[in-house]
């Protein structure tokens, strides 16, 4: 296991405070709620570096090809994301043109230094891994990635040693693995137990809660930060929820929409580092980032939220 670096952690907390981006994580309890404030941050267990609890995914939404207007619209989404205090953007070589679109946005905004760049390696060929990582880096147009993950465990036996050696050489800060929609959880657990991972990315949302049983407790035990993908089930979850009235308790945790309830439910789990909703809408990214502010549900309210959604 990689030991936490206190100096790095301190440096990042200070940097966040200097940027006015956030306060340390506090799971606010129901009625004793303070007003909405800065974006909530949580520590990456392996270093203590603080990260905003809401990030930005790019699956589908940023795959807009060579459409100049759509690329600029994605840059506008990124601008709103950063303005609201966001940092982690997550992409993959599997996401079509998403990587160059992120690179276009970073270049246009001049915010390459601000982003927490999370990407993936997605090839079963060990020999192709380094070349793919370099190609991804060129698309993003950044000096190095903060986090690289083995996408859907594809060829992890060969890719993980490559990523760990990059980290050791200072060309990468964090290493992780991903899966989605409940696939290969046994294998994920096995890799989590046997390798000094910094991050694991899994599907976790109001309906897909299987990871609560084993993976999230294991992540806490092993000091691995968890990223939640598919927080809205690619929008399907919200389309279903929006047919129902927002319950009164939503106001107790400063939620004005089902999207915010869904995100606060996820990021308030003690093992979660952040959720990465994807969107192509400036309005939605602001709404998502607002879920990273204000009061958060405690354990009792989290149970109530889950039970309420199960009953709908």
């Amino acid at each position, binding site marked *: 296991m990689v030991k936490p670096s206190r100096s790095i952690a301190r440096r990042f907390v200070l940097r966040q405070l200097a940027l006015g981006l956030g306060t340390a994580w506090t799971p606010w309890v129901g009625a004793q709620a303070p007003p909405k404030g800065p974006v909530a941050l949580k520590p990456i267990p392996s270093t203590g570096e603080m990260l905003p609890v809401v990030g930005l995914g790019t699956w*589908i939404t940023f795959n807009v*090809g060579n459409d100049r207007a*759509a690329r600029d619209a994605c840059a506008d989404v990124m601008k709103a994301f950063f303005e609201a205090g966001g940092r982690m953007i997550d992409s993959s070589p*599997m996401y079509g043109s998403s990587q160059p679109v992120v690179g276009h946005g970073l270049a246009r905004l001049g915010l390459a230094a601000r982003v927490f760049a999370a990407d993936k390696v997605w090839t079963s060929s060990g020999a192709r891994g380094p070349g793919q990582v370099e190609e991804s880096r060129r698309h993003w147009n950044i000096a190095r990635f903060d986090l690289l993950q083995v996408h859907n465990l594809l060829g992890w036996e060969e890719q993980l040693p490559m990523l760990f050696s990059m980290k050791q050489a200072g060309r990468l800060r964090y290493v992780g693995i991903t899966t989605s929609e409940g*696939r290969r959880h046994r294998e994920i657990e096995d890799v989590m137990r046997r390798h000094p991972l910094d991050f694991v990315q899994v599907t976790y949302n109001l309906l897909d809660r299987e990871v609560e049983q084993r993976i999230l407790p294991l992540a806490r035990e092993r000091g691995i930060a968890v990223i939640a993908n598919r927080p809205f089930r690619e929008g399907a979850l919200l389309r279903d929820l929006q047919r129902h009235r927002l319950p009164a308790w939503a106001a107790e945790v400063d939620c004005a929409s089902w999207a915010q309830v869904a995100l606060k439910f996820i990021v308030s789990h003690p093992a979660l580092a952040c959720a990465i909703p994807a969107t*192509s809408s400036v309005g939605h990214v602001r709404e998502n980032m607002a879920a990273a502010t204000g009061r958060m549900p405690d354990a009792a309210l989290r149970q109530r939220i889950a039970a309420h959604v199960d009953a709908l």
Partner: protein
Amino acid sequence: MTEWWTYRLSDFLMFSARTYRRLFELHNADLWPLPVIAGIGGALALVVAWRRRHLSARATSMALTVLAAAWLWVAWAFQLQRYAAINTAGPWFAAAFALEALLLVAAGLASLRSSSEPPASGRRWGLGLFAFAVLAYPWLGLLFGRPLSQAEVFGIAPDPTALGTLGVLLLTSQPGDAIVARRALALAWPIPLLWCAVSGATLWAMEAPEAPLLPVLAAIAVTVAVRSSRANRAA
């Protein structure tokens, strides 16, 4: 791929419907006025096919060669230059379209040896499918609230090109064909049919209302072709 049974069709859709429709809008704008010229050319070809009940060997060969050029053009200009930017399978689709162009050229050369009138059902359905692909398909989006700027035009976009090709193949598959010509024409069927299935699946995953259209029309084309072939053998 492990646990393949857990994947849904929508899991393979890596772009939004909006991005997909914008492809055609940008494609048409970049090629303007080629989409109009292609539409007029298709309509003229339809008139010729309508009026000539008897397609000469030379006319058949020419039609298949022009069709081959359309497939090659769509392979390069649409599949490779445009679609590949949002779909990692784009280069494979381009290769398949280029291969179809070769198969159509081969079928055109083989057809030089034969010509006779096709059975009535084959001709009627062939003309119908070709007319639908050329005349109706570009306007289809209007029914579903999409602008004409996103029109999919025969010879420019893959769907109407594949559908129109099935129509032409029905028109050019003739009972008196030499066995070489029949085999060459038969080889030109699978790729347009596969494309109708792939595109239908893509549209289905995007929840597009017209998703069943291409697979259903392709199935009709196959049914008609099989029946025509049986009728020819019986005759």
